[in-house]
């Protein structure tokens, strides 16, 4: 005879709703799609998309009016939105760069490649370092002061030194991008470790875990949310440094493109470069965020239920 737990009835109400075993997985998927569709329809019904539209219209409108209609003196040299967009979309652009020209993608690719290499290196070195700094008090006492000593120097102040230290034109650029990224990642990882509630660590020790096990089972997963926030910041900072580095030295790349089109008085191209930078930068940031959400299912689910911290 099975012992009937006392609170089975209460439990039925408290337990989260789960698809029963008889309904196949596809039902789960269908409901996720339905939820997404529902959310979109709700969004469309709220004032938000329309306000957004108004904002963009105002912005573009002002730009358009200032340059092309009122011809304000300050804006005399600036290209207007029509000039930029038509150039961008034209199969035979005046200055040789549009979505149809392979050069455009070459620039994007070069910049993206540099950021990726630098970012991956920075993450590979920064995360372990940050974890160690947060976990071992002794290690932090030795290493952190040196770290903090170099940190106030803006990555971009390293440009000449980087050019001196490293051969070639690619390495200094990647080094600069790496530097900024590395600092952001390390710092955020360290903060992440330090912000883990000490109860989790204590609970693990109580349950018989040894120091190493606590590190892998508690510290690393516990710091993940902070690490991913740090990675998003790190990607942003990487783009920031990359552009500066490209503007000062090197060939190809979006920063280089912006600079050269400026010197060659190809202003619409310059603006195209700027906006492309913005889009690519945003996409990489979003990519990191999505990766984080995927890897931390538990957090996504917790936040979705409006969970308590």
């Amino acid at each position, binding site marked *: 005879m099975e012992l009937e*737990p006392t609170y089975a009835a209460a439990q039925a109400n408290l337990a989260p709703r*789960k698809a029963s075993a008889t309904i196949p997985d596809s039902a789960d998927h269908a409901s996720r799609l339905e939820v997404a569709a529902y959310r979109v329809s709700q969004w469309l019904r709220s004032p938000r998309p329309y306000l957004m539209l108004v904002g963009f219209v105002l912005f573009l409108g002002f730009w358009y009016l200032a340059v092309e209609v009122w011809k304000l003196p300050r804006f005399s040299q600036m290209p207007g939105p029509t000039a930029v967009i038509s150039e961008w979309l034209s199969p035979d652009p005046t200055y040789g760069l549009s979505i149809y020209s392979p050069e455009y993608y070459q620039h994007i690719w070069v910049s993206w490649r540099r950021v990726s290499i630098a970012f991956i290196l920075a993450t590979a070195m920064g995360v372990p370092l940050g974890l160690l700094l947060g976990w071992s008090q002794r290690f932090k006492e030795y290493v952190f002061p040196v770290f903090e000593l170099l940190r106030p120097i803006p990555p971009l102040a390293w440009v000449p030194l980087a050019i001196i230290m490293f051969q070639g034109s690619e390495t200094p650029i990647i080094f600069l991008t790496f530097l900024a990224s590395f600092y952001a990642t390390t710092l955020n990882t360290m903060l992440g470790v330090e912000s883990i509630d000490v109860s989790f660590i204590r609970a*693990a*020790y*109580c*349950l018989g875990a040894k120091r190493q096990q606590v590190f892998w089972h508690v510290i690393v997963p516990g710091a993940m949310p902070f690490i991913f926030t740090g990675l998003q910041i790190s990607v942003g900072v990487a783009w920031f440094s990359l552009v500066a580095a490209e503007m000062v030295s090197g060939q190809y790349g979006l920063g280089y493109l912006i600079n050269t089109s400026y010197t060659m008085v190809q202003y619409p191209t310059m603006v195209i470069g700027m906006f492309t930078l913005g889009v690519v930068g945003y996409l990489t940031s979003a990519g990191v965020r999505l990766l984080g959400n995927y890897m931390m299912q538990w957090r996504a689910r917790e936040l979705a239920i409006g969970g308590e911290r």
Partner: protein
Amino acid sequence: MNPERAAACERSIAAPLPATSSSPEKPRRGEIRIADVIKIYGSEANGIRAVDKCTFDVPAGKITVVVGPSGCGKTTLLNAIAGFHSITSGTIHLDGKVLCGAGRPKAEPGPDRIVVFQNGALFPWKTIIENVAFGPIVQGRLTRRQAFDQARTMLAEAGLRNLESNYPGEISSGMRRRVEITRALMNDPKVLLLDEPYRALDSLTKSVMHEALLETFDRNQVTIFFITHDLEEAIFLGHRVVIMTTRPCRPKKVLTVDIPHPRDYSVLTAKRFREYLDETAAAVHEEALKAFAAGERER
């Protein structure tokens, strides 16, 4: 609740004292002796004296509840037993062996004394079953499959089987507490240390939790050391209630609650319960006033 248990409870309320537990005898373990323990944070001269010459016993196989105002130092005692803090002087014995004392001011945390924390310490990044199976796996006692199997059994016993693949963030706090206790019991600890585990729950959930705890205790007979500020909770749950003074804490009054286990909520209106309350409420209230006047802050 099931009829068998209800009947047992009725019998125990009406029974003359003292009555032993109706479960079969298990070897008694988890006896803690606290002797002259002093804990000072900071230096001798201008530190904070949290515990001052505190002496009392925690009998094996029973529920001992420590009651006191916020900030009085009771958590310090629990932390010392658990091995999170050191003590300045005095000794704490566990089953006859020195846990911490002269020459060894801090114990090592371990699975013989497991803590259930006030705000819960289920690992949010592991599923319920991974949490519950955590102890035996990291200790190397069981393989992953064995641990999971045992975890499933224990969760089912506690009526929590459905929650197996959920994350702690998805279930209610009451459920989380019970999972945490299950996680602790997986390791067959000598002592279960509960640090105001139900403080953050509403009183309705709390009453359900109390009965759950008592039921668990009936099954396991593990020594329980429970901290709370709630006197009724203390008398309802405990075999022995130790009332502490404000900081620095020492036992002000020790009460043996002779209401036999198993207990259910009808105890709350029983005459004997009210008598115990009468005896102790004045003492607790006096300390509460002192704590208030001293401006004690919650942790």
